[in-house]
Structures are given as structure tokens and as C-alpha cells.
């Protein structure tokens, strides 16, 4: 086992090569996951914001909207 870990004295080179490779890929996977989640929540928030906002916007828009009444 120790022998294996030492890789004939080249542990530093071998493990940092493999470590960086699979580490970066792992980071990419995690990053993709988290950005998927944030995208979903962001859109969910957008949807939620848009639907109820319709009502107050229509109400509050009355005074400012009346001025720009459609021809």
C-alpha cells in the first residue's frame, strides 16, 4: 500500500497529476449541479415575482398608466 502511494518516489508528480485531473472534473460536476439548482430557483423566483406582481402593478399602474392611456 505504502509502495503504491509512493509511486516509486514520484508520488508528488503522479498524484498531483491525477488529483488535479479528477479534482477539476469533480469541481466541474459540483459546479454544474449547483448552477442547475440556482438556475431553477432563480427562474422559480422570477415566475413567482411575475405572477403576483401583475395585480399590484395593474393597481399601482393605474395613476401612471392612466396618463399614458391608449389612443
Amino acid at each position: 500500500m505504502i509502495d503504491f502511494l509512493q509511486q516509486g518516489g514520484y508520488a508528488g508528480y503522479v498524484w498531483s497529476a491525477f488529483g488535479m485531473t479528477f479534482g477539476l472534473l469533480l469541481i466541474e460536476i459540483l459546479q454544474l449541479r449547483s448552477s442547475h439548482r440556482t438556475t431553477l430557483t432563480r427562474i422559480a423566483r422570477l415566475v413567482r415575482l411575475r405572477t403576483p406582481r401583475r395585480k399590484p402593478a395593474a393597481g399601482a399602474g393605474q395613476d401612471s398608466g392612466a396618463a399614458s392611456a391608449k389612443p
Partner: protein
Amino acid sequence: MTINWFKFASPAAFYPIAGRLIPWFGGIAAVLVLIALYWGFFETADRLGGSNPQKEYYRIIFVHVPAAWMSMWLYLVLAGWSAVGLVFNTRLSFMMAKAVAPTGAIFTFLALWTGALWGRPSWGTYWDWDPRLTSELLLFFLYIGYIALHSAIDDMRRADRAAALLAIVGLVMVPVIYLSINCPDPNQCAALHQRSDPGSIHPSILIPMLTMTLGLWSYSFAAVFARLRNIILSRESDNAWVRDVVAKEAV
């Protein structure tokens, strides 16, 4: 593969397909990578003799070469989808190109990193201005240029098209760049040619190397599709189907 991509050219149609494909590609990637790692570490000799004796550090080859190959292959994919996008004006192609870029850049970086770590014990230096290394470095710059240009423009359509054009210009230039650093002196070009045919490599090394390459290739599919899904979602966010998806997935 004679899939009619135009049938899937709508983001809405492709989103669920990509979602179903990801686990498959991910699974295959995991299996192949594990096989390659096992083989590479336990079924191959610790030392290489022959004309070019190497010790354990040659094992870096199992990640180095696949990473280098993937980096080049993904650039072709990137430029290809960019061209398709510019010619046919299909949104999905641009998204595909954009999704490929970060994965490609990561593999390019890995080729450089692992190459450097190999070079130190093998050549006694982390870095040398060898043509191959130099062209890999320039490829990295091309990827970074693509990503930088894309993110510097915030109008999506302009960003897509501008970056696509850059990718194609880069593709035209790559052979020229490669030629110029591979043979900086045209008078004696042939003498400098690099030997590198996979056939000269011992099968016990070649097989895990190729397995790893396939594994990483499969991984690239999974990663690119996952990123593509995110891009599709955020770009189509005001479409009804996205709302349905969000309602379903965001539980």
C-alpha cells in the same frame, strides 16, 4: 450516426432528451475511468525499459494523453457547432458551442498541467518551448478568448454570433499556428518532425490510455449536456414549458 439533429434543434425538445442521456454518459464514463485507473495502476509495469526508460511517473500518460486529445477534439466540436449556428441560425447550436467551451478549456488546462508534471521528472523541467506544448498553450488561449468574448457581451445573440465567428477564425488559424511552431525554420522542417504514433506504445499502456480517453469522452458528453440544460433553462426562462419544468424539478 445519422441522427437528424434538426429534429431536435428546438431547445424545448432537446432539454428532456439531454436530461435522459446524462445518466447514461455519466455512468459509462465512471465505469470506463475506473477500469482504466485499475488497469493503469495495477496491471502495468512500474518501469519502462527500452529506448526511453521511464519510472512510475510515466503513468501520467493515462490522464495526459486523453486530456490532450479531448482538448483538441472539443475545439473541433466548438467550432463545428459555431459554424452550424452561423449558417443555419439555430439557437441550439450556439448554446451547444457555449456549453462545450468550459469543458474544453478544463481539458486543455489538464493537458498542460499533467504534461508539466510529467516533464519535470522526464525532461528535468516543468516547461519547455517545445512545439507541442506551445500549441497546446495557444489552444488554451483560444478557449479563454472564446469564453472571455462571450461573457464580455451581454446581448445574448450578439455574444453567440461574435464568439462563434471567433471560434471559426481560430479554427482556420490553428493549422497555421501549428505549422509555424512545429517548424519555425522552414529550411529544415522535416528534421524537426515529432515522432508520435500510438502504435509504438506497448499494449498494456495503450489499452488503459484508450479506455481513459473513451471515459473522458463520455464524461464530456455528460458535462456538456448538463451545462447545455442550464443554458437552455436560463435563456428560455419566459417560456411556458420552462415554468412547467421548474415547477416539476424545483419541488
